[in-house]
């Protein structure tokens, strides 16, 4: 099984039809386990119970960046390899990524109020994530603004690659500049500074959110393929001379 085998939309549809129920089931199980572990996690020594917002906030924030990374690979697929499903993957991922980014911003805001004393500050990490959210919205608008799918795909692919510059800025903003947001806890030099009691539920939630994304993404890609087929059929219908 290679990417080339998946290039045929019909094979993609039949394969995902088999895989999707299992993915959805695994997502549900892991989400339940992760939420249960999160609820049972102990209070933090300085943040108390508000630390539990982390189990929702951090997976959302990771996925917000991960989805843009996926779209960047798909953008290369569109521009370089001309993979037929690459632009379908990129288009289907944008709204899901926007939703993850929005949730990361909202949960972060709700966490910031009790801990930092503010819902929002224009620090480098918060601002760069807000820019990511606005770029998701711009990308979705661009997909809709150009009617011809293949031309829309090229424009969106270029915007996606330009926007990818923001990913390292988000990741390292807390190291490069003084920020209100604390530096990374899990993915950092010298190992995680999270106690196991918090690390285990966080990783379970992160895997659950990743599976959730894959499930939603494959389903959205199927919809997009079917939508394009309908469009083609309508075009053929319109082109046929009426009796």
């Amino acid at each position: 099984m290679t990417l080339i085998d998946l290039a045929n939309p019909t094979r993609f549809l039949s394969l995902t039809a088999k895989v999707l129920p299992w993915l959805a089931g695994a997502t549900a199980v892991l989400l339940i386990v992760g939420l249960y572990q999160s609820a049972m996690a102990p209070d933090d020594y300085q943040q108390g119970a508000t630390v539990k917002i982390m189990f929702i906030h951090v997976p959302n924030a990771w996925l917000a960046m991960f989805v843009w990374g996926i779209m960047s690979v798909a953008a290369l697929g569109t521009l370089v390899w001309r993979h037929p499903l690459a632009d379908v993957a990129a288009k289907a991922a944008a709204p899901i990524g926007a939703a993850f980014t929005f949730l990361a911003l909202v949960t972060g805001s709700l966490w910031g109020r009790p801990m930092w004393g503010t819902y929002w500050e224009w620090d480098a990490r918060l601002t760069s994530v807000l820019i990511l959210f606005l770029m998701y919205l711009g990308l979705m608008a661009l997909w809709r603004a150009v009617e011809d799918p293949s031309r829309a795909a090229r424009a969106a692919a270029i915007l996606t690659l330009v926007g990818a510059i923001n990913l390292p800025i988000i990741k390292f903003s807390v190291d490069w500049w003084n920020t209100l947001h604390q530096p990374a806890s899990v993915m950092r030099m010298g190992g995680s500074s999270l106690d196991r009691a918090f690390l285990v539920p966080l990783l379970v939630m992160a895997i659950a959110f990743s599976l959730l994304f894959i499930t939603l993404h494959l389903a959205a890609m199927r919809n997009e393929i079917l939508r394009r087929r309908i469009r083609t059929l309508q075009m053929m219908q319109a082109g046929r001379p009426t009796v």
Partner: protein
Amino acid sequence: MIGCALLVLGIAVALVLNALRDSIVFFSTPAMVAEKHIPAGKRFRLGGLVEPGSLQRGEHLAVSFKISDGSATLPVAYQGILPDLFREGQGVVAEGALDPAGVFKADTVLAKHDETYMPKEVADALKKQGHWKDDYGANAGKKSGDGGKSMQGASR
């Protein structure tokens, strides 16, 4: 071709960010303030650790404390409710301006927390075994704002 374009774009962004470095930093430390000679009345954010033993509470939620970054220290005056995490030894960011006497008059105080997360029992156990590097609990004071809820004075 795409790789070249991205490389050029990346360098451009890096140069822009480098040029904007002063405005992107969220706060200045006392040492940076001394270096930059910020005039009295100009608003900026001051960040650092609340110096242990410097916190004084007055009437009507007035507090004064010192913010230190290890090499320099600035006195801060503030009136209002402090965030829950505020305590001596904690990282804070205050927004306001210097007065002519060199005291930083803050109208907002935000608390920072570090990237370490651990259950309270683990923190207590570490402290008991003497593995805690800083002054955990040593400087816990009473807060006027939250009905004297006990505080654990731990931070880096």
